[in-house]
């Protein structure tokens, strides 16, 4: 059995009176595509931030590629991960070409300031993967929100990461671009063995592509594998009793059994 890409052991973040994350245990193997769903304020982004080393859990520990993430090996382990946040903290005002933005993904170490194009091949590959080759010479500031999101994804892919952490990567994309993105991510899992953890709101949109879905609201209420049903009680626990589950697609992880039962009836 291969070493898990991510192993979360009893992760707690926050205070006992009000946990943001409570006793999170999760294993993600190489090539596994995990979707995380949950309501606003459920701790989805916090969980990604903890795995990306942006915040330290109050208790518990995180193993990446079989090694415990600590301040001593942080740089080595995180260099093998790609991270895409929901949006940039502040919109970039730097005058940069798109290909230079992608090359920034490779700028995690000191190097002469004129040496930006030494990884031209990797930059081109990342641009090709995200279908942004045509934008390579454009000024990043002149792109639309969706285009910028694709370029930022290319930046995350430039290092050929073993683990990808994505926080609502499709938020600014149109339906067609969303589908292309999910297909690309699925292909990366299958062909390159990349492990992916992706936070999304819309379980219906991702259920055809992911291997499993974790339902998170402070703690993981349910971890459903592909073809497994998420019980209605779980939805009610996470979103409240007003939640009404409608079966729409037998391939959707959440609706699998409901759809079958509806068909039987």
């Amino acid at each position, binding site marked *: 059995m291969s070493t898990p890409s991510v192993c979360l052991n009893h992760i707690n973040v926050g205070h006992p009176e009000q946990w943001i994350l409570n006793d999170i245990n999760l294993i993600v193997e190489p090539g596994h595509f995990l979707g995380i769903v949950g309501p606003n304020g459920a701790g989805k982004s916090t969980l990604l931030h903890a795995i*990306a*080393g*942006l915040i330290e859990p109050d208790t518990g520990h995180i193993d990446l590629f079989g090694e415990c993430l600590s301040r001593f090996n*942080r*740089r*080595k*382990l*995180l*260099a093998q*991960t*790609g*991270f*895409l*946040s929901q949006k*940039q*903290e502040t919109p*970039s005002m*730097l*005058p*940069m*070409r798109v290909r*230079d*933005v992608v090359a*920034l*993904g490779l*700028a*995690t*170490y*000191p*190097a*002469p*300031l*004129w*040496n*930006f194009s030494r990884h031209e091949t990797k930059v081109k590959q990342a641009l090709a993967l995200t279908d942004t080759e045509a934008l390579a010479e454009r*000024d990043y500031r002149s792109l639309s929100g969706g285009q910028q999101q694709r370029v*930022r994804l290319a*930046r*995350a892919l430039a*290092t050929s990461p073993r683990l990808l*952490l994505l926080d609502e990567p499709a938020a600014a994309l149109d339906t067609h671009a969303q589908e292309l993105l999910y297909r690309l991510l699925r292909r990366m899992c299958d062909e390159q063995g990349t492990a992916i953890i992706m936070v999304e709101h819309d379980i219906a949109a991702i259920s055809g592509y992911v291997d499993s879905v974790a339902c998170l609201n402070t703690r993981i209420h349910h971890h459903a594998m592909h073809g497994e049903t998420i019980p209605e009680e779980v939805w009610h626990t996470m979103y409240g009793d007003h939640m009404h589950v409608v079966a729409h697609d037998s391939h959707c992880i959440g609706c699998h059994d409901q759809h079958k039962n509806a068909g039987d009836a």
Partner: protein
Amino acid sequence: MSGFFASEVMRAALFPSTLIAIVASGMSVMILAHRLAFLAVGVSHATLAGLGLAVVLALPLLPTAAATAVIVSLMLASMPRHRGLNDDAGTGVLFAGAMALGIVLLSTASKYEVDLFGLLFGNILMASERDQYWLMWGSSIVMISLIWAARPWWSIAFDAKTAAASGLPVHLYRLLLYAMVGLSVVMCVKLAGIVLTTGLLVLPAACAWFWGRGLFGLWLISLLISLTGTWLGLFLSYILDWPSGATVVLTLCAFFGLSWAGSWLNQSIFGGSPQRIFD
């Protein structure tokens, strides 16, 4: 022109001014990229406390001012994030406090005949050999840091969160950047004084922003503008008999106006993208 080069004072001012112009051109790109213009204003005014301390305790002016500026910059880099204050508020507090301390210290030391005008508005023509020695050390440290850390600094300026998630020690690089801003400020104080230093540290990159694209392109244009502005400013100050620091800053301001106008003309009349000119 020949009179300018015949003047021993002006010739002696050329070397330190050129050093300062080179340092200012590189740091100004980072100051604009990280939105630290107000920090530069705050630190430059805070150096008055260091200068006051140096005068009262009879310490060498530039090294004491440099140490103060670096300490103030590092305090600003650490203080706001841990206490919930934003950078602007932290800068405002230290700016006012250090400036007030400097004024009090200097007022008690009036018998030492402090050149207050030189401190406030700069006097590169009076740079001593010791000053030049310190300027050489300071510029070497800043330039080595700049060349070594430019890529990570640029990456952090683009998106600090993503840079941190890729394993970059963002806080350490930020501390180094703030310390280098402090050191650059003290060097520029010698040429432009406390009041006008920000001009040297903002204007070259502000001009370059209209024309350059990418870190290296911006840095080259900034260097060109900084050197030309400094030399032309010194020359004009000689023939017009104006204060050197203020004339250099005015020249850089004129370059900024021309860049702005040129960029506007290029875009609105010729429909061009100014950044394409210097890729």
